[in-house]
């Protein structure tokens, strides 16, 4: 039995990250107000440093720490780099926004760093209480960040809902953990799987406990029917925080769920596989409700909230394909998480750029964006096509991979439902694309800036006798938007390259993904 402090050096990246967060808090006190965006750059530099540190120290290391509470393996390394990278891109996209719209930038970046620390630990936890504490580290940072727009009533409402429901779901999760402990006497994942395979009767306490854990995690994932906090929290939060909620916190929750399922439940699947039915039901409901309700949204953040609920459904569906025989399911989920995150970063970077320029966030506000700022329109269109599952973008490839895994596990109906709801999602993505490309821009306000360098849309054929597209003559005058800042451009261009690159040739990424999934499913 290894001692509690053996191999502690393997946690150096985590200690460094915590140190970085404290450093940001301290420097915040010393900097004058107008120089605070330095903190963003400091955080980015620090995160890149931690990535480098992890990549130098950790490859090939396999160890458990604190007597089996935390794992250092291929899986945790993959997610560590992934989360740190997400953090870098989220911060890069938010530096302008924070400067323009938010007070207290120091706390913003500091909390973001702490939440990334929580996410890293979530991917490493191999024990229920450790997982819970890591999850709370993430959640507490997020509670504050969602409420960051102090003077905005929606932000307050959203954050209040988020905190109350978050606390409630944490309680459920804890209650579930305690019942599992009472039934099995263990909280470590491998102990749970060993106990599940050996016990002779499944007592109701165990059932209830496992179900409560799933419910608690369902809240964190915003899976239907535990999703109702998500749209309000997304809408109320400042855009970078919405992005962070939709992308990073979701990916982290899945990292936790994936390890929990793979290490605690999958090895005992021949004795107890009812969890698959629960997961499949949650998945089916999430796909249906998320995508159908998204049809009715007008606000871009709410649209992204419901669309992300739909995507949670697809990823959860992939969970039924986890098995010790094949890595197809685990690969599919991780690939999907990466592809979804990258695509969403492009969407949110573009929305942040649009918001910085206009202060608007409703779908109709996007009208004529293809004329007003073509690159932004292209970035949103490409990423929406990707999320809708069309080639040559990563969305197509990741959906094909994941749904194949689901079908291969014997859940063809679930794969079919996923494919069908993917069609539904295409409809609302196309509505946004329609606003940008087909609807003419709203007429410019009285201060007519249209004499600037912007191009006028060429008039359509002048006199159309009976075939007149009367209801949308090009308005002629529109206000060209300023170019997005260089930072956001860099984020979007890199993101778009990845969206196309991974869609056309995902093999290198999948090799890395395979390393990660082999670490949690050694039999596969």
């Amino acid at each position, binding site marked *: 039995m290894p001692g509690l402090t053996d191999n502690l050096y393997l946690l150096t990246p985590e200690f460094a990250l915590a140190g970085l967060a404290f450093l940001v808090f301290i420097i915040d006190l010393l900097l004058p107000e107008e120089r605070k965006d330095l903190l963003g750059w400091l955080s980015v530099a620090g995160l890149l440093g931690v990535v480098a540190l992890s990549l130098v120290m950790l490859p090939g290391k396999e160890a458990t720490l604190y007597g089996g509470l935390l794992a250092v393996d291929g899986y945790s390394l993959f997610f560590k780099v992934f989360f740190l990278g997400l953090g870098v891109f989220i911060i890069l996209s938010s530096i302008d926004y924070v400067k323009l719209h938010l007070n207290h930038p120091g706390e913003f970046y500091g909390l973001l760093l702490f939440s990334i620390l929580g996410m890293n630990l979530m991917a490493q936890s191999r024990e229920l209480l450790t997982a819970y504490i890591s999850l709370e580290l993430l959640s507490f940072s997020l509670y504050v960040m969602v409420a960051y727009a102090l003077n905005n009533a929606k932000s307050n409402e959203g954050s209040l809902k988020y905190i109350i429901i978050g606390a409630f779901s944490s309680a459920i999760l804890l209650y579930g953990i305690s019942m599992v402990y009472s039934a099995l006497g263990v909280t470590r994942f491998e102990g749970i799987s060993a106990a599940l395979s050996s016990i002779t009767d499944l007592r109701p306490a165990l059932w209830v406990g496992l179900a409560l854990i799933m419910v608690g995690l369902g809240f964190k994932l915003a899976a239907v029917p535990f999703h109702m906090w998500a749209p309000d929290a997304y809408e109320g939060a400042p855009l970078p925080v919405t992005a962070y909620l939709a992308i990073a916190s979701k990916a982290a929750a899945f990292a936790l769920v994936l390890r929990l399922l793979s290490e605690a439940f999958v090895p005992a699947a021949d004795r107890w596989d009812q969890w698959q039915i629960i997961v499949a039901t949650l998945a089916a409901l999430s796909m249906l409700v998320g995508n159908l309700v998204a049809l009715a949204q007008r606000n871009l953040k709410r649209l992204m909230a419901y669309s992300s609920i739909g995507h949670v459904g697809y990823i959860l569906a992939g969970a039924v394909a986890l098995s010790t025989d*094949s*890595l*197809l399911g685990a*690969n599919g989920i991780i690939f999907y998480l990466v592809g979804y995150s990258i695509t969403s970063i492009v969407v949110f970077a573009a929305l942040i750029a649009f918001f910085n320029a206009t202060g608007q966030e409703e779908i109709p506000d996007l009208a004529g964006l*293809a004329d007003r700022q*073509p690159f932004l329109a292209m970035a949103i*269109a490409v990423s929406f*096509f990707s999320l809708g599952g*069309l*080639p*040559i973008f990563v969305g*197509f490839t990741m959906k*094909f*991979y994941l*749904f*194949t895994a689901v*079908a*291969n596990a*014997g859940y*063809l109906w679930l*794969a*079919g439902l996923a*494919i*069908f709801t*993917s*069609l539904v999602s*295409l*409809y609302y993505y*196309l509505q946004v*694309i*329609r606003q940008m*490309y*087909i609807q003419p821009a709203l007429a410019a306000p009285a201060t007519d800036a249209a004499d600037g360098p912007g*191009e006028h*849309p*060429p008039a*359509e*054929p002048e*006199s*159309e*006798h*009976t*075939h*007149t*597209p*009367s*209801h949308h003559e090009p308005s002629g005058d529109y206000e060209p938007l300023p170019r997005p800042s260089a930072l956001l451009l860099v984020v979007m261009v890199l993101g778009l390259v990845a969206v196309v690159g991974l869609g056309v*040739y*995902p*093999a290198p990424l*999948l*090799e890395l993904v395979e390393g990660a999934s082999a670490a949690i499913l050694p039999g596969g």
Partner: protein
Amino acid sequence: MTNFDQAVLLLIILVPLAGALLSMFLPRGRSEDAWYFAIFVSAITLVLSVVVFARYDFGAGGYQFVRTYEWLDAPLNIDLSLAMDGIAAPLVLLNGIVLFGAVLISQTIKHRTRDFFVLLLALGSGVYGVFVVQDLFFLFFFYELAVLPMYLLIGVWGSSTDFGSFMRTKEYGAMKLMLFLVAGSVLIWIGILALYVAAGQAGSPTFSIEALGELARAGHFSPAFQNWVFPLFMIGFGVLAGLWPFHTWSPDGHVAAPTGVSMLHAGVLMKLGAFGIIRVGMVLLPEGAAAWMPVLIVLGTVNVIYGAIAALSQRDLKYIIGYSSVSHMGYVLMGIATLHPVGLTGAVLQMFSHGIMTALMFAMVGAIYERSHIRDITVLNGLMKRMGTASFFFAVAGLASLGLPGLSGFVAEFMVFTGAFRTYLPLAVLAVIGAAITAVYILRLLARTFFGEADPRWEHLTDASPVEKTVGAAFALILLFVGVWPAPLTRVINTGVESVLLLF
């Protein structure tokens, strides 16, 4: 095999795709540049298509230009395998011709020109891909790639139609087309997954069409399985082929689309559907296909009759062509469903012939609409006097579509009828009646709109531009050539058809 033979199919997919990506970096605003560049790219693909068709050895038959590129390892195992058989060869040629023609005709696109050609070339790449890949993943990949640009192509550059009491807007046409086609691909996708799972149960999960075909021949797919999976492909691909009653997107979409896109869409894209039924449905699920063919031939016959009657009652030139496409795709579906060598060869020949003729019709109607801004045949008349060349080429295409001997439509339809007479006599009779209705609406159209009395209202119309004349003349010559001497096409098609029918 020469190096060229090894690389040609990959080139044929990548050239338009690379052209699309490169176009994005052309300077915005100079619309001629984008057009010239697209001409350059599509000329290369046209040359490649002609060469690859000419180099296909019909004596040897089978799959040629075979090449496999590894793409993804286990556990999913997907390779990009390329090959072309006698059924794909004429369709590759068709795509080369129509894509080039569509790019030329799109000279008139002046609004966001660069974006237009990016999407058009991407579409062309997707179509090539479907014809030459040998893997279900990539087949579906390219199939979706061919569908994806349509929404923007129609929605941004299309035109709306006013029916007086209601509007058919371009947004409506674009969204309807997109949702129908993607709904079709939902079925296809489920079918592909079902095949993958079934192959897995037989011991080797795979998406390779060749490997799946071997499993099918070895009897690993039970008849019950085939009977429920085949209709997924039949309807899924059938939607794109304009199969009744899932055809309604097609006239609305074609009418709303700009000329070049209508040409590609009616000319080539609808053929993807019919091609998919043969390549995936019949080859991988022969027993299911045999069981469902009676249904397909009935639906195909309905297509012929229904499309013709609907065309008869339209007043808008583009709607007439749109419904005539539905009707003519019916012959293709019937030919496929005969499972008879002559009928199936006729079906593939009809795909080629209809592709050229309908593209020609849309090109000429586009030229007329460009000048008159009207497509109502009760208002337009006597165009021959004002736009002689355009009217003449339209007339050639019209005559080909009603099956005038000496033009390509006759040969193809005759072969389809021959196949159908030997297998489903009553339906063949109905289909011939459909051809007669086609003659009614085409001749009525020619008589009134083109050869009627000149109307002073149309004094100002100028004849087709040199580019339009070139495209018109080239396409009309192809129709004549195939009509007089179809052997260069049929002998290639035959080799492909025979190997498919060996399964039945």
